[in-house]
Protein backbone atom coordinates (compact mmCIF):
# COMPACT_ATOMS: atom_id res chain seq x y z
CA UNK A 1 0.00 0.00 0.00
CA UNK A 2 1.19 3.51 -0.82
CA UNK A 3 2.44 5.77 1.93
CA UNK A 4 -0.33 7.57 3.78
CA UNK A 5 1.35 10.90 3.09
CA UNK A 6 1.86 10.21 -0.60
CA UNK A 7 0.01 13.31 -1.83
CA UNK A 8 1.09 15.67 0.94
CA UNK A 9 2.27 18.99 -0.53
CA UNK A 10 2.68 17.56 -4.04
CA UNK A 11 -0.10 19.58 -5.62
CA UNK A 12 -1.07 23.24 -5.24
CA UNK A 13 -3.97 25.49 -6.09
CA UNK A 14 -2.58 28.24 -8.33
CA UNK A 15 -5.82 29.78 -9.51
CA UNK A 16 -9.21 30.25 -7.87
CA UNK A 17 -12.34 32.20 -8.69
CA UNK A 18 -16.08 32.39 -8.10
CA UNK A 19 -18.60 33.78 -10.57
CA UNK A 20 -21.27 36.22 -9.52
CA UNK A 21 -23.61 34.24 -7.26
CA UNK A 22 -27.19 34.44 -6.07
CA UNK A 23 -29.56 35.32 -8.88
CA UNK A 24 -27.58 35.39 -12.13
CA UNK A 25 -30.17 35.01 -14.90
CA UNK A 26 -27.87 36.31 -17.64
CA UNK A 27 -25.97 33.00 -17.59
CA UNK A 28 -27.23 29.44 -17.96
CA UNK A 29 -25.54 26.68 -15.97
CA UNK A 30 -23.08 26.12 -18.82
CA UNK A 31 -22.47 29.86 -19.05
CA UNK A 32 -21.64 29.98 -15.34
CA UNK A 33 -19.36 26.95 -15.66
CA UNK A 34 -17.25 28.48 -18.43
CA UNK A 35 -17.29 31.90 -16.73
CA UNK A 36 -15.83 30.30 -13.59
CA UNK A 37 -13.22 28.58 -15.79
CA UNK A 38 -12.26 31.82 -17.54
CA UNK A 39 -11.88 33.65 -14.23
CA UNK A 40 -9.77 30.91 -12.62
CA UNK A 41 -7.44 30.71 -15.62
CA UNK A 42 -7.01 34.51 -15.52
CA UNK A 43 -6.31 34.29 -11.78
CA UNK A 44 -3.67 31.61 -12.47
CA UNK A 45 -2.19 33.72 -15.23
CA UNK A 46 -2.36 30.93 -17.79
CA UNK A 47 -4.07 30.33 -21.11
CA UNK A 48 -6.39 27.48 -21.88
CA UNK A 49 -3.65 25.70 -23.87
CA UNK A 50 -1.89 24.94 -20.59
CA UNK A 51 -4.88 23.00 -19.28
CA UNK A 52 -4.43 19.28 -19.86
CA UNK A 53 -6.92 18.04 -17.27
CA UNK A 54 -10.55 19.02 -16.79
CA UNK A 55 -12.96 18.19 -13.98
CA UNK A 56 -16.59 19.37 -13.90
CA UNK A 57 -19.79 18.29 -12.22
CA UNK A 58 -23.11 17.85 -13.91
CA UNK A 59 -25.70 20.61 -13.69
CA UNK A 60 -29.36 19.96 -12.90
CA UNK A 61 -30.48 22.99 -14.89
CA UNK A 62 -28.48 22.10 -18.01
CA UNK A 63 -27.25 18.52 -17.88
CA UNK A 64 -25.10 16.74 -20.45
CA UNK A 65 -24.57 13.02 -20.58
CA UNK A 66 -20.85 13.77 -20.99
CA UNK A 67 -20.58 17.00 -19.06
CA UNK A 68 -16.81 17.49 -18.81
CA UNK A 69 -16.40 16.61 -22.48
CA UNK A 70 -19.12 19.13 -23.37
CA UNK A 71 -17.35 21.86 -21.41
CA UNK A 72 -14.01 20.95 -23.04
CA UNK A 73 -15.71 21.24 -26.41
CA UNK A 74 -17.31 24.58 -25.48
CA UNK A 75 -13.92 25.96 -24.42
CA UNK A 76 -12.13 24.21 -27.30
CA UNK A 77 -9.56 22.50 -25.13
CA UNK A 78 -8.33 18.93 -25.57
CA UNK A 79 -7.59 17.47 -22.13
CA UNK A 80 -5.89 14.13 -21.58
CA UNK A 81 -7.68 13.75 -18.24
CA UNK A 82 -11.40 14.57 -18.32
CA UNK A 83 -13.85 13.65 -15.54
CA UNK A 84 -17.42 14.56 -14.60
CA UNK A 85 -18.38 14.25 -10.95
CA UNK A 86 -22.00 13.23 -10.88
CA UNK A 87 -23.78 14.83 -7.95
CA UNK A 88 -23.80 16.05 -4.41
CA UNK A 89 -21.48 17.99 -2.17
CA UNK A 90 -19.37 14.90 -1.44
CA UNK A 91 -18.32 13.27 -4.69
CA UNK A 92 -17.97 16.63 -6.43
CA UNK A 93 -15.38 17.37 -3.75
CA UNK A 94 -13.71 13.98 -3.29
CA UNK A 95 -12.88 14.17 -7.00
CA UNK A 96 -10.16 16.65 -5.96
CA UNK A 97 -8.15 13.80 -4.44
CA UNK A 98 -8.49 11.94 -7.72
CA UNK A 99 -7.32 14.99 -9.71
CA UNK A 100 -4.38 15.59 -7.36
CA UNK A 101 -3.41 11.93 -7.66
CA UNK A 102 -3.53 12.22 -11.45
CA UNK A 103 -1.11 15.15 -11.29
CA UNK A 104 1.19 13.40 -8.80
CA UNK A 105 1.22 10.28 -10.99
CA UNK A 106 2.11 12.29 -14.09
CA UNK A 107 -1.15 11.59 -15.88
CA UNK A 108 -1.50 15.34 -16.46
CA UNK A 109 0.12 18.57 -15.26
CA UNK A 110 -2.52 21.27 -14.92
CA UNK A 111 -6.11 20.47 -13.99
CA UNK A 112 -8.96 22.95 -14.27
CA UNK A 113 -11.79 22.09 -11.86
CA UNK A 114 -14.88 24.09 -12.77
CA UNK A 115 -18.39 23.54 -11.43
CA UNK A 116 -21.62 25.54 -11.67
CA UNK A 117 -25.38 25.30 -11.70
CA UNK A 118 -28.37 27.56 -12.13
CA UNK A 119 -30.85 26.27 -9.56
CA UNK A 120 -32.44 29.69 -9.00
CA UNK A 121 -32.91 30.95 -12.56
CA UNK A 122 -32.67 27.75 -14.59
CA UNK A 123 -35.31 25.75 -12.71
CA UNK A 124 -38.66 26.46 -11.10
CA UNK A 125 -38.80 26.16 -7.29
CA UNK A 126 -40.79 22.97 -7.65
CA UNK A 127 -38.32 21.48 -10.14
CA UNK A 128 -35.40 22.33 -7.85
CA UNK A 129 -37.14 20.72 -4.88
CA UNK A 130 -38.16 17.56 -6.72
CA UNK A 131 -34.75 17.04 -8.31
CA UNK A 132 -32.97 17.38 -5.01
CA UNK A 133 -35.35 15.11 -3.12
CA UNK A 134 -34.77 12.41 -5.76
CA UNK A 135 -31.71 11.50 -3.69
CA UNK A 136 -34.19 9.41 -1.70
CA UNK A 137 -34.48 5.67 -2.38
CA UNK A 138 -36.92 5.37 -5.30
CA UNK A 139 -38.65 2.29 -3.94
CA UNK A 140 -38.38 2.56 -0.14
CA UNK A 141 -38.25 6.30 0.62
CA UNK A 142 -39.65 8.43 -2.23
CA UNK A 143 -43.21 6.95 -2.05
CA UNK A 144 -43.56 8.51 1.43
CA UNK A 145 -43.07 12.04 0.10
CA UNK A 146 -39.83 13.01 1.85
CA UNK A 147 -38.16 16.35 1.20
CA UNK A 148 -34.47 17.16 1.50
CA UNK A 149 -35.04 19.35 4.58
CA UNK A 150 -36.98 16.41 6.08
CA UNK A 151 -34.06 14.02 5.56
CA UNK A 152 -31.79 16.41 7.47
CA UNK A 153 -34.48 17.10 10.06
CA UNK A 154 -34.36 13.39 10.96
CA UNK A 155 -30.68 13.88 11.81
CA UNK A 156 -31.37 17.07 13.75
CA UNK A 157 -34.07 15.41 15.88
CA UNK A 158 -31.78 12.49 16.66
CA UNK A 159 -28.95 14.83 17.70
CA UNK A 160 -31.30 16.89 19.87
CA UNK A 161 -32.69 13.75 21.49
CA UNK A 162 -29.29 12.22 22.18
CA UNK A 163 -27.27 15.29 23.18
CA UNK A 164 -29.81 17.91 24.22
CA UNK A 165 -28.97 20.17 21.29
CA UNK A 166 -31.48 23.01 21.08
CA UNK A 167 -33.21 24.89 18.24
CA UNK A 168 -31.39 28.01 19.48
CA UNK A 169 -28.04 26.25 18.97
CA UNK A 170 -29.04 25.23 15.44
CA UNK A 171 -30.04 28.84 14.78
CA UNK A 172 -26.64 30.02 16.03
CA UNK A 173 -25.05 28.26 13.04
CA UNK A 174 -27.14 30.34 10.65
CA UNK A 175 -26.36 33.53 12.55
CA UNK A 176 -22.62 32.74 12.51
CA UNK A 177 -22.64 32.35 8.74
CA UNK A 178 -24.70 35.48 8.23
CA UNK A 179 -22.25 37.59 10.24
CA UNK A 180 -19.52 36.57 7.82
CA UNK A 181 -21.72 37.13 4.78
CA UNK A 182 -22.32 40.70 5.96
CA UNK A 183 -18.57 41.23 5.40
CA UNK A 184 -18.68 39.60 1.95
CA UNK A 185 -19.88 42.05 -0.70
CA UNK A 186 -20.72 39.18 -3.07
CA UNK A 187 -22.93 37.17 -0.70
CA UNK A 188 -26.53 36.45 -1.67
CA UNK A 189 -27.90 37.20 1.82
CA UNK A 190 -26.40 40.09 3.81
CA UNK A 191 -29.29 41.28 5.99
CA UNK A 192 -28.36 40.89 9.65
CA UNK A 193 -30.22 38.12 11.47
CA UNK A 194 -30.49 37.12 15.10
CA UNK A 195 -31.37 33.77 16.67
CA UNK A 196 -34.95 34.98 17.18
CA UNK A 197 -35.26 35.64 13.42
CA UNK A 198 -34.26 32.06 12.63
CA UNK A 199 -36.74 30.69 15.16
CA UNK A 200 -39.47 32.98 13.84
CA UNK A 201 -38.94 31.93 10.22
CA UNK A 202 -41.38 29.46 8.70
CA UNK A 203 -41.12 25.85 9.94
CA UNK A 204 -40.19 23.64 6.97
CA UNK A 205 -39.63 20.23 8.62
CA UNK A 206 -39.43 20.19 12.41
CA UNK A 207 -37.07 21.33 13.88
CA UNK A 208 -35.71 23.07 10.77
CA UNK A 209 -36.94 26.56 10.05
CA UNK A 210 -36.50 28.28 6.71
CA UNK A 211 -33.32 29.99 7.93
CA UNK A 212 -31.84 26.63 9.01
CA UNK A 213 -31.88 25.68 5.31
CA UNK A 214 -29.27 26.76 2.78
CA UNK A 215 -29.98 28.96 -0.20
CA UNK A 216 -31.08 28.07 -3.71
CA UNK A 217 -28.66 29.88 -5.97
CA UNK A 218 -27.02 30.34 -9.32
CA UNK A 219 -23.25 30.33 -9.35
CA UNK A 220 -19.99 28.66 -10.21
CA UNK A 221 -16.50 28.27 -8.81
CA UNK A 222 -13.26 26.99 -10.29
CA UNK A 223 -9.70 26.22 -9.26
CA UNK A 224 -6.51 25.45 -11.19
CA UNK A 225 -4.34 22.67 -9.75
CA UNK A 226 -0.75 21.91 -10.71
CA UNK A 227 2.30 20.15 -9.30
CA UNK A 228 4.29 21.77 -6.48
CA UNK A 229 7.29 21.98 -8.84
CA UNK A 230 5.37 24.21 -11.25
CA UNK A 231 3.38 26.08 -8.62
CA UNK A 232 5.78 29.02 -8.39
CA UNK A 233 5.20 30.07 -12.00
CA UNK A 234 1.90 31.84 -11.31
CA UNK A 235 0.97 35.37 -10.16
CA UNK A 236 -0.40 34.41 -6.74
CA UNK A 237 1.29 32.52 -3.92
CA UNK A 238 0.44 28.83 -4.27
CA UNK A 239 -1.80 27.16 -1.71
CA UNK A 240 -0.70 23.57 -1.14
CA UNK A 241 -2.95 20.56 -0.67
CA UNK A 242 -1.61 18.89 2.46
CA UNK A 243 -4.18 16.27 3.29
CA UNK A 244 -7.09 14.42 1.75
CA UNK A 245 -9.53 12.03 3.29
CA UNK A 246 -12.79 10.44 2.26
CA UNK A 247 -15.44 8.43 4.06
CA UNK A 248 -18.52 6.86 2.48
CA UNK A 249 -20.99 5.18 4.79
CA UNK A 250 -24.33 4.80 2.98
CA UNK A 251 -26.45 6.52 0.38
CA UNK A 252 -29.96 6.52 1.83
CA UNK A 253 -30.54 7.91 5.31
CA UNK A 254 -32.78 4.98 6.26
CA UNK A 255 -29.69 2.78 5.86
CA UNK A 256 -27.35 4.94 7.98
CA UNK A 257 -25.74 3.05 10.86
CA UNK A 258 -25.78 6.21 12.97
CA UNK A 259 -27.85 9.37 12.62
CA UNK A 260 -25.60 11.42 14.89
CA UNK A 261 -22.06 10.35 13.92
CA UNK A 262 -20.98 10.46 10.27
CA UNK A 263 -18.18 9.22 8.04
CA UNK A 264 -16.61 12.66 8.53
CA UNK A 265 -14.86 10.85 11.39
CA UNK A 266 -12.99 8.70 8.86
CA UNK A 267 -12.50 11.39 6.21
CA UNK A 268 -11.13 13.78 8.82
CA UNK A 269 -8.82 11.20 10.40
CA UNK A 270 -7.40 10.29 6.99
CA UNK A 271 -6.84 13.93 6.01
CA UNK A 272 -5.18 14.81 9.34
CA UNK A 273 -2.91 11.78 9.08
CA UNK A 274 -1.77 12.67 5.56
CA UNK A 275 -1.18 16.30 6.55
CA UNK A 276 0.52 15.42 9.82
CA UNK A 277 -1.75 17.99 11.46
CA UNK A 278 -4.73 17.96 13.79
CA UNK A 279 -7.85 20.02 14.41
CA UNK A 280 -6.00 22.38 16.77
CA UNK A 281 -3.63 23.32 13.92
CA UNK A 282 -6.42 24.74 11.72
CA UNK A 283 -6.63 28.53 11.52
CA UNK A 284 -10.04 28.37 9.85
CA UNK A 285 -12.50 25.84 8.51
CA UNK A 286 -15.20 25.66 5.90
CA UNK A 287 -17.77 23.10 6.95
CA UNK A 288 -20.51 22.00 4.56
CA UNK A 289 -23.62 23.78 5.81
CA UNK A 290 -26.54 22.70 3.65
CA UNK A 291 -28.58 22.62 6.88
CA UNK A 292 -27.59 23.84 10.33
CA UNK A 293 -27.49 20.41 12.10
CA UNK A 294 -24.98 19.13 9.53
CA UNK A 295 -22.45 21.68 10.77
CA UNK A 296 -22.76 20.52 14.37
CA UNK A 297 -22.24 16.86 13.53
CA UNK A 298 -19.29 17.66 11.25
CA UNK A 299 -17.59 19.93 13.81
CA UNK A 300 -17.78 17.08 16.30
CA UNK A 301 -16.76 14.33 13.88
CA UNK A 302 -13.80 16.38 12.62
CA UNK A 303 -12.54 16.74 16.18
CA UNK A 304 -13.15 20.46 16.71
CA UNK A 305 -15.19 19.62 19.81
CA UNK A 306 -16.41 16.55 21.66
CA UNK A 307 -19.56 14.68 20.64
CA UNK A 308 -22.64 16.61 21.66
CA UNK A 309 -20.78 19.86 22.32
CA UNK A 310 -20.90 21.56 18.92
CA UNK A 311 -24.17 23.35 19.67
CA UNK A 312 -22.61 25.13 22.63
CA UNK A 313 -19.36 25.66 20.69
CA UNK A 314 -21.14 27.64 17.97
CA UNK A 315 -23.56 29.40 20.34
CA UNK A 316 -20.60 30.63 22.40
CA UNK A 317 -19.19 32.39 19.33
CA UNK A 318 -16.10 30.26 18.65
CA UNK A 319 -16.81 30.19 14.90
CA UNK A 320 -16.69 33.95 14.46
CA UNK A 321 -13.78 36.07 13.24
CA UNK A 322 -11.33 36.26 16.13
CA UNK A 323 -12.83 33.09 17.58
CA UNK A 324 -11.14 29.76 18.10
CA UNK A 325 -12.19 28.46 14.67
CA UNK A 326 -13.46 31.06 12.17
CA UNK A 327 -15.87 29.01 10.06
CA UNK A 328 -17.46 29.51 6.66
CA UNK A 329 -16.00 32.99 6.35
CA UNK A 330 -17.62 33.64 2.95
CA UNK A 331 -21.04 33.11 4.54
CA UNK A 332 -21.32 29.45 3.56
CA UNK A 333 -24.15 27.71 1.81
CA UNK A 334 -26.55 29.30 4.30
CA UNK A 335 -25.76 32.91 3.37
CA UNK A 336 -23.20 33.17 0.53
CA UNK A 337 -24.70 30.84 -2.08
CA UNK A 338 -25.71 27.24 -2.71
CA UNK A 339 -26.04 26.23 -6.33
CA UNK A 340 -26.26 22.51 -5.41
CA UNK A 341 -23.59 20.17 -6.73
CA UNK A 342 -20.75 22.75 -6.83
CA UNK A 343 -21.32 23.77 -3.19
CA UNK A 344 -18.10 22.46 -1.64
CA UNK A 345 -15.94 24.15 -4.26
CA UNK A 346 -16.93 27.55 -2.81
CA UNK A 347 -15.32 26.35 0.41
CA UNK A 348 -12.12 25.56 -1.44
CA UNK A 349 -11.95 28.94 -3.20
CA UNK A 350 -12.65 30.71 0.10
CA UNK A 351 -9.84 28.77 1.81
CA UNK A 352 -7.51 29.78 -1.03
CA UNK A 353 -8.45 33.47 -0.73
CA UNK A 354 -7.95 33.28 3.06
CA UNK A 355 -4.57 31.54 2.81
CA UNK A 356 -3.44 34.10 0.21
CA UNK A 357 -4.58 36.78 2.67
CA UNK A 358 -6.91 38.25 0.04
CA UNK A 359 -10.21 37.89 1.89
CA UNK A 360 -10.71 41.57 2.58
CA UNK A 361 -12.93 42.50 5.50
CA UNK A 362 -13.43 38.87 6.43
CA UNK A 363 -9.73 37.95 6.47
CA UNK A 364 -8.60 35.64 9.27
CA UNK A 365 -5.40 37.33 10.47
CA UNK A 366 -2.22 35.37 9.71
CA UNK A 367 -4.05 32.31 8.37
CA UNK A 368 -1.58 29.52 7.55
CA UNK A 369 -3.71 26.36 7.40
CA UNK A 370 -7.34 25.63 6.59
CA UNK A 371 -9.68 22.66 6.51
CA UNK A 372 -12.52 22.30 4.01
CA UNK A 373 -15.14 19.60 4.47
CA UNK A 374 -17.79 18.63 1.95
CA UNK A 375 -20.56 16.08 2.24
CA UNK A 376 -23.19 14.79 -0.12
CA UNK A 377 -26.18 12.52 -0.24
CA UNK A 378 -27.74 12.63 3.23
CA UNK A 379 -24.59 12.60 5.40
CA UNK A 380 -23.47 9.86 3.01
CA UNK A 381 -20.29 10.77 1.25
CA UNK A 382 -17.65 12.87 3.00
CA UNK A 383 -14.45 14.52 1.78
CA UNK A 384 -11.97 16.54 3.84
CA UNK A 385 -9.16 18.64 2.39
CA UNK A 386 -6.44 20.38 4.40
CA UNK A 387 -4.59 23.27 2.78
CA UNK A 388 -1.59 25.35 3.77
CA UNK A 389 0.63 28.20 2.65
CA UNK A 390 3.71 25.98 2.91
CA UNK A 391 4.24 22.67 1.15
CA UNK A 392 5.90 21.14 4.23
Amino acid at each position, binding site marked *: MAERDSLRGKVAVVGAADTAVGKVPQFSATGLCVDAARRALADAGIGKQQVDGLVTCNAFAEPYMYHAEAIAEYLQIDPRYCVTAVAGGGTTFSILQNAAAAIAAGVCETVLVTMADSLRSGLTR*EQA*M*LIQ*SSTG*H*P*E*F*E*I*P*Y*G*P*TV*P*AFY*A*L*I*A*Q*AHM*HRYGTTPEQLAAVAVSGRKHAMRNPHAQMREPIEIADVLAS*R*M*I*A*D*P*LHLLDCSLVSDGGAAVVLTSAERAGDHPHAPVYLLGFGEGHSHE*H*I*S*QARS*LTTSAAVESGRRAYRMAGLGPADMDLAWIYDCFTPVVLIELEDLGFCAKGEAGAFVAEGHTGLGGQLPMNTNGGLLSYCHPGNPGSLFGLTEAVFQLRHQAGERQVGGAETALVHGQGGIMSSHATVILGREAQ
Partner: protein
Amino acid sequence: MGDPRDARPVPRPTPATAPFWAACREHRLLLQRCPACQAYQFYPRTLCSACLAHEPEWVAASGRGSVRSFTVIRHPVSPAFADEVPYVLALVRLDEGPTLMSVLRHCAPADVTIGMPVEVAFEERRDEVSLPVFRPAAGD
Protein backbone atom coordinates in the same frame (compact mmCIF):
# COMPACT_ATOMS: atom_id res chain seq x y z
CA MET B 1 -59.18 16.23 -13.53
CA GLY B 2 -58.18 13.28 -11.39
CA ASP B 3 -57.22 13.25 -7.74
CA PRO B 4 -53.82 14.98 -7.42
CA ARG B 5 -52.97 12.37 -4.81
CA ASP B 6 -52.86 9.84 -7.64
CA ALA B 7 -49.62 11.56 -8.70
CA ARG B 8 -47.91 10.37 -5.54
CA PRO B 9 -45.08 8.07 -6.59
CA VAL B 10 -45.48 4.33 -6.19
CA PRO B 11 -42.67 1.82 -5.81
CA ARG B 12 -41.70 -0.15 -8.89
CA PRO B 13 -40.88 -3.66 -7.68
CA THR B 14 -37.75 -5.39 -8.94
CA PRO B 15 -37.21 -9.16 -9.07
CA ALA B 16 -35.52 -8.87 -5.65
CA THR B 17 -38.32 -6.87 -4.04
CA ALA B 18 -41.46 -8.25 -5.71
CA PRO B 19 -42.17 -10.81 -2.94
CA PHE B 20 -42.05 -7.99 -0.37
CA TRP B 21 -44.61 -5.89 -2.24
CA ALA B 22 -46.79 -8.91 -2.98
CA ALA B 23 -46.95 -9.66 0.75
CA CYS B 24 -47.79 -5.99 1.45
CA ARG B 25 -50.81 -6.41 -0.82
CA GLU B 26 -51.93 -9.04 1.67
CA HIS B 27 -51.06 -6.72 4.55
CA ARG B 28 -48.13 -8.80 5.69
CA LEU B 29 -44.72 -7.23 6.38
CA LEU B 30 -41.76 -9.40 5.36
CA LEU B 31 -38.09 -9.14 6.18
CA GLN B 32 -35.15 -11.08 4.86
CA ARG B 33 -32.89 -13.21 7.04
CA CYS B 34 -29.68 -14.96 6.05
CA PRO B 35 -29.90 -18.75 6.55
CA ALA B 36 -26.17 -18.85 7.35
CA CYS B 37 -25.38 -15.84 9.52
CA GLN B 38 -28.96 -15.18 10.70
CA ALA B 39 -28.65 -11.43 9.92
CA TYR B 40 -31.91 -9.63 9.20
CA GLN B 41 -31.91 -7.03 6.46
CA PHE B 42 -34.11 -4.38 4.94
CA TYR B 43 -34.49 -3.32 2.11
CA PRO B 44 -34.73 -6.65 0.28
CA ARG B 45 -31.61 -7.68 -1.63
CA THR B 46 -30.50 -10.55 -3.83
CA LEU B 47 -27.81 -11.46 -1.32
CA CYS B 48 -27.05 -11.19 2.37
CA SER B 49 -25.32 -7.84 2.78
CA ALA B 50 -23.58 -9.07 5.94
CA CYS B 51 -21.82 -12.11 4.47
CA LEU B 52 -22.60 -11.82 0.71
CA ALA B 53 -22.66 -15.59 0.68
CA HIS B 54 -26.23 -16.69 0.71
CA GLU B 55 -29.63 -16.04 -0.72
CA PRO B 56 -31.70 -14.58 2.10
CA GLU B 57 -34.93 -16.21 3.21
CA TRP B 58 -38.21 -14.35 3.60
CA VAL B 59 -39.58 -14.28 7.14
CA ALA B 60 -42.66 -12.62 8.60
CA ALA B 61 -41.75 -9.50 10.57
CA SER B 62 -43.37 -8.75 13.91
CA GLY B 63 -44.56 -5.44 12.46
CA ARG B 64 -43.56 -3.79 15.71
CA GLY B 65 -40.81 -1.32 16.31
CA SER B 66 -39.98 2.10 17.68
CA VAL B 67 -39.44 5.59 16.32
CA ARG B 68 -35.71 6.12 15.74
CA SER B 69 -36.26 9.66 14.52
CA PHE B 70 -39.02 11.69 12.91
CA THR B 71 -39.92 15.05 11.44
CA VAL B 72 -43.11 16.86 10.57
CA ILE B 73 -43.17 17.86 6.92
CA ARG B 74 -44.89 21.24 6.65
CA HIS B 75 -43.92 22.04 3.07
CA PRO B 76 -44.85 19.24 0.65
CA VAL B 77 -42.35 17.92 -1.85
CA SER B 78 -44.90 18.26 -4.68
CA PRO B 79 -48.59 19.14 -5.18
CA ALA B 80 -49.38 15.42 -4.97
CA PHE B 81 -48.63 15.57 -1.23
CA ALA B 82 -50.26 18.98 -0.60
CA ASP B 83 -53.35 17.45 1.00
CA GLU B 84 -51.23 15.49 3.47
CA VAL B 85 -49.27 18.29 5.19
CA PRO B 86 -48.43 18.30 7.95
CA TYR B 87 -47.34 14.65 7.85
CA VAL B 88 -44.94 12.77 10.07
CA LEU B 89 -42.01 11.17 8.28
CA ALA B 90 -40.22 8.67 10.50
CA LEU B 91 -37.39 6.21 10.66
CA VAL B 92 -38.77 3.13 12.35
CA ARG B 93 -36.43 0.58 13.89
CA LEU B 94 -38.18 -2.77 13.74
CA ASP B 95 -37.88 -5.07 16.74
CA GLU B 96 -35.83 -7.40 14.50
CA GLY B 97 -33.19 -4.66 13.99
CA PRO B 98 -33.46 -3.13 10.53
CA THR B 99 -34.65 0.46 10.06
CA LEU B 100 -37.11 1.58 7.43
CA MET B 101 -38.51 4.94 6.40
CA SER B 102 -42.25 5.40 6.64
CA VAL B 103 -44.96 7.77 7.78
CA LEU B 104 -46.86 7.75 11.07
CA ARG B 105 -50.65 7.76 10.93
CA HIS B 106 -53.32 8.09 13.62
CA CYS B 107 -51.06 10.23 15.77
CA ALA B 108 -50.97 14.02 16.16
CA PRO B 109 -47.55 15.37 15.16
CA ALA B 110 -47.15 16.95 18.61
CA ASP B 111 -47.56 13.55 20.26
CA VAL B 112 -44.71 11.80 18.44
CA THR B 113 -41.55 11.08 20.43
CA ILE B 114 -38.31 9.28 19.67
CA GLY B 115 -38.49 5.78 21.12
CA MET B 116 -42.28 5.64 20.88
CA PRO B 117 -43.52 2.08 20.14
CA VAL B 118 -45.30 1.73 16.80
CA GLU B 119 -46.87 -1.03 14.74
CA VAL B 120 -47.35 -1.51 11.03
CA ALA B 121 -50.51 -0.75 9.08
CA PHE B 122 -51.05 -0.68 5.35
CA GLU B 123 -52.25 2.07 3.06
CA GLU B 124 -53.52 1.49 -0.46
CA ARG B 125 -52.16 3.67 -3.20
CA ARG B 126 -53.88 3.87 -6.59
CA ASP B 127 -55.21 0.35 -6.05
CA GLU B 128 -51.81 -0.92 -7.18
CA VAL B 129 -49.72 -1.16 -4.10
CA SER B 130 -50.07 -1.30 -0.34
CA LEU B 131 -47.51 0.82 1.48
CA PRO B 132 -46.41 -0.11 4.98
CA VAL B 133 -47.12 2.82 7.31
CA PHE B 134 -46.99 2.91 11.10
CA ARG B 135 -49.28 3.95 13.95
CA PRO B 136 -48.85 4.06 17.71
CA ALA B 137 -48.68 0.53 19.07
CA ALA B 138 -51.81 -0.72 20.79
CA GLY B 139 -51.30 -0.78 24.54
CA ASP B 140 -50.37 -4.15 25.93
